[in-house]
């Protein structure tokens, strides 16, 4: 083991791996998701009636951007399964913006729960047995 490198050299090496072209193609779609989610989340932030301090504003946007990173690709692929012409490369952008733009997640979860509940009740109610 040689002499340990200084922290600046280590950081530069890490950044070099991240910015290498081999990894960039993987990060490209997620970079687009982050940009649109940031735009949507900041629009939602500016629409809240609460006067948030800086820390809470960062958390507000951070939560929405993280959620968009996690959910956008999955929802886009689910959409393609239901609507064959809705290719993820076209739906990623509006989906990421919409996920970032949601202000009331409780309301959205309630609505999704209602839709699932209706679908399940219809299925159980339509069961011939």
């Amino acid at each position: 083991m040689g002499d340990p490198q200084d922290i600046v050299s280590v950081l530069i090496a890490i950044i070099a791996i991240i910015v290498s072209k081999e990894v960039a193609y993987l990060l490209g779609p997620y970079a687009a998701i982050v940009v649109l989610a940031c735009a949507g989340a900041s629009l939602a932030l500016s629409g809240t009636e609460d006067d948030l301090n800086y820390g809470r504003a960062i958390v507000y946007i951070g939560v929405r951007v993280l959620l968009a990173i996690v959910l956008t690709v999955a929802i886009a692929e689910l959409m393609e399964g239901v609507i064959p012409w809705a290719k993820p490369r076209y739906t990623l952008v509006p989906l990421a913006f919409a996920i970032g733009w949601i202000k009331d997640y409780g309301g959205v979860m309630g609505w999704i729960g209602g839709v699932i509940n209706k679908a399940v009740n219809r299925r159980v109610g339509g069961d011939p047995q």
Partner: protein
Amino acid sequence: MTHSEIMLIAFNAALCLAGAAICVCRMAHMSERFTKPAIRVQYALWVAFFALSAITWTFDDLTAAQVILTALALGHLLLGVQAWRFGAPSYTLRGHYEAMGD
């Protein structure tokens, strides 16, 4: 990728972070009821501008990134057309903030 290119990317990311931080700080004090929609969208465009500028290194075609960045900046100006419709808005005049007591 050379050392200086990486340093430039990191420096640009720091500048973009600062710009986005200013926008977030201001947007945290806006509200749907009292803030003009055009102002809210203008600042959302700036956040998108800074976020995109920080990650242009992921683009294969930098011209596409440049076009989007320019469109975002132009969008910001176009949204302000109403405010400039009858000449310079009052907030651009000297002494405006002193008169407001700021």
